[in-house]
């Protein structure tokens, strides 16, 4: 620099002027020569301005789209990077934008999944119930594969089971998809061996053509070669020819999009996970058209309807049977509950078996005999009853009959705590029953007021008859009892005592009426008093013989006729039967009902 500076200082002024003139000429010359280029550069600079670029870019993008999708592929990494950056820094914008989109998308996916499930169910149902389905079932059993897999395999016209994207040079699998339900294999080993075979046949036959198809049993391998990668589809069945176009298109798109990754591939297989959506397009399948789908569907619906009906009928029958069983059980339990002498403490049902438990009075019927007529089979029910005394009136009555054993003509009834006997019985039974009745549980009173004592009635009748037919005869004008009349007097006294006793036994009152009489001779007044004396005289004798005076009433009847003189036994020394028999005392009994009858026994 310093050298140049020094040189310029020594250049003479004349030379400098000439040099300046030369420069101007040169500049002119350059302007003339470069004029078109300068215009073009200026124009280009105009095009490069932000305004001009803003106008040109959309036009360029449209033009590029018309030619193909190269621009889209080219811009994709940049756009992706921009989106990734935006997602990181401002995620809320994306959340707001995605939420309205995600909902319908999820709904659509769910609908699709449900539709697939329904279709699968339909197919399985249709095939599962046919003769062909039976054959497939046998095949499934024989081969050990699931029935559903056999159905799918046999119903398919074709199905692409696997798609391999293989790196051409190394034979390494870049990405691999398997259709759901297809048998799994190791894709790396399969793809490598395919590459080896491809290389082998290529070298062996020295042909430029590569392995395009291979057949293995029901499988056909479709191989679509690209310059850097090979697409292999393993198809079960026969795919249509145009499936080759699908493979070719996908292969070309992968090459377009992943050309760089493929050419610099050093084992980074994760880069190729992005090919998934494209490979998915290769996983196609088509079902065999059914011989008569409508009929088949109708048949399936009919079978399904029949099955559902059978299930419904079965369930209804079961419910009905259960209802009937429950009703029978409840009926049996209620019967046992209502039966006097049984106390049901537990009742439960287990299907058709019943179990009852509680207490049973020995006089109550066997529980089994009660539920048997209700349709409960012997052995279908178990009974566990302990013993107890029931205080139920019906049981008390039953127990009274069992213990007292009433004779024919006697009935027993229980009213509260009172046992009531009705009818006619012997004195012996009544005496026993009076004691035993009060020993019965829950009986505190034995009412015999409606019970006739046949023995006492007879005794009363006899005693009454004896009294009514007896008389004591007196001498003329006297109230003295002749010696010979003493036998009659004692007989009557005994009959009276008996009658009083029986009357008391029968709950009756008895009054002995002793009537004194005279014959017609003598004054009336005297006869009246004499008749009273005679009655009183007999009373004194009776009292002396133990007859209670309070049960005796005397009557002075005066002069009366003998009602039936023929029956009068004529005393010795008497000749006039009528007069002799008129001087007498006769007897009559008046019976009444006691105010509080003694025909009831009570516990005190």
């Amino acid at each position, binding site marked *: 620099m310093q050298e140049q500076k020094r040189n310029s200082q020594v250049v003479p002024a004349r030379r400098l002027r000439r040099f300046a003139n030369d420069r101007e000429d040169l500049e002119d010359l350059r302007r003339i020569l470069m004029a078109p280029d300068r215009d073009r550069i200026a124009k280009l600079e105009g095009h490069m301005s932000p305004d001009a670029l803003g106008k040109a870019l959309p036009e360029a993008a449209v033009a590029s789209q018309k030619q193909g999708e190269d621009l889209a592929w080219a811009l994709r990494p940049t756009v992706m990077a921009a989106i990734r950056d935006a997602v990181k820094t401002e995620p809320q914008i994306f959340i707001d934008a995605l939420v309205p989109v995600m909902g319908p998308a999820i709904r659509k996916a769910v609908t699709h999944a449900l539709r697939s499930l329904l279709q699968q169910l339909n197919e399985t149902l249709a095939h599962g119930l046919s003769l062909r389905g039976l054959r497939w079932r046998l095949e499934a059993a024989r081969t050990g594969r699931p029935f559903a897999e056999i159905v799918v395999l046999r119903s398919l016209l074709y199905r692409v089971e696997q798609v391999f994207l293989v*790196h*051409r*040079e*190394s*034979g*390494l*699998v870049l990405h691999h998809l398997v259709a759901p339900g297809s048998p799994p294999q*190791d894709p*790396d*080993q399969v793809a*490598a*061996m395919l590459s*080896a*075979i491809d*290389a*082998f046949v*290529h*070298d062996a036959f020295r042909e430029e053509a590569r392995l395009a198809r291979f057949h293995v049993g029901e499988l056909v391998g479709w191989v679509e070669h690209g310059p850097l990668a090979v697409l292999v589809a393993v198809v079960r069945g026969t795919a249509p020819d145009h499936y080759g176009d699908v493979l070719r298109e996908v292969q070309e798109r992968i090459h377009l999009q992943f050309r760089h990754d493929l050419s610099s591939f*050093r*084992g*980074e*297989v*994760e880069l190729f996970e992005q090919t998934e959506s494209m490979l998915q397009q290769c996983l196609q399948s088509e079902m065999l058209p059914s011989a008569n789908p409508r009929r088949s569907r109708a048949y399936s619906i009919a079978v399904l309807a029949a099955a559902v009906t059978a299930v419904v009928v079965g369930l209804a029958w079961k419910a009905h049977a259960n209802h009937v069983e429950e009703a029978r059980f409840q009926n049996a339990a209620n019967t046992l509950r209502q039966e006097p002498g049984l106390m049901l403490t537990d009742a439960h049902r287990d299907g058709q078996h019943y179990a009852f438990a509680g207490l049973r009075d020995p006089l109550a019927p066997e529980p089994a005999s009660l539920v048997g007529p209700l349709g409960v089979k012997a052995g279908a029910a178990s009974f566990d009853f302990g013993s107890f005394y029931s205080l139920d009136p019906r049981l008390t009555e039953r127990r009274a009959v069992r213990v007292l054993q009433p004779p024919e003509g006697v009935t027993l009834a229980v009213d509260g705590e009172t046992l009531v006997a009705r009818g006619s019985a012997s004195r012996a039974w009544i005496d026993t029953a009076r004691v035993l009745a009060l020993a019965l549980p829950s009986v505190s009173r034995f009412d015999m007021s409606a019970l006739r004592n046949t023995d006492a009635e007879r005794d009363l009748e006899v005693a009454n008859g004896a009294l009514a037919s007896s008389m004591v005869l007196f001498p003329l004008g006297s109230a003295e009892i002749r010696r010979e009349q003493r036998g009659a007097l004692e007989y009557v006294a005994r009959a009276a005592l008996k009658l009083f006793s029986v009357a008391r036994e029968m709950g009756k009152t008895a009054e002995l009426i002793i009537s004194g009489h005279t014959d017609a001779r003598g004054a009336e007044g005297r006869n009246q008093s004499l008749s009273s004396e005679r009655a009183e005289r007999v009373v004194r004798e009776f009292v002396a013989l133990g007859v209670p005076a309070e049960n005796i009433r005397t009557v002075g009847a005066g002069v009366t006729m003998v009602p039936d003189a023929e029956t009068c036994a004529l005393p010795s020394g008497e000749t006039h039967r009528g007069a002799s028999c008129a001087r007498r005392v006769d007897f009559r009994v008046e019976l009444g009902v006691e105010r509080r009858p003694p025909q009831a026994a009570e516990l005190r």
Partner: protein
Amino acid sequence: MARKKKICMLGATGVGKTSLVARFVHSIFSDAYRTTVGVTIDKTHVCVGGHEVDLVMWDLSGEDEFQSVQLAYLRGAAGYLLVADGTRRETVTTALSLQEAAVRVVGNIPLVLVLNKADASASWDIDEDLEKQLREKKWTLVKTSAKTGDGVEGAFTALTHAMLAADGLVQDDEGRR
């Protein structure tokens, strides 16, 4: 990031390539492939230097007077095990010539020289001079015994390490050579 690498087993017939692989993995293909196509494929997974690697192993049928190795199978390989039988000196020669042929197909990719049958020390045929010559090649040299399993895993690990180093994913360990 998980990676996949294709590797090859290269060597003379009977040096024990298949036995080495069998020691390392379980194969899904039968030996019939080797006689018909000249290769069987096996796969295993290793982890070296923190890197997960799937090794897809191409076990090439051996070179002998009746058949030649299908060197086309080497294409796309990231490395190979060059296998020789330590009890048969001539297999080393075969290995060396195979290596030269391999370079013509795939270039200088990582390799590990394996001297197999190290358990048969009584009939060991590699003298110190030869071993010295081999070591001068600057290849990783591993003595293995497919019979006892000694050194087998080490051979595969060394090759994986070398391949990862070639990708610049791990430090090239000079001490291994």
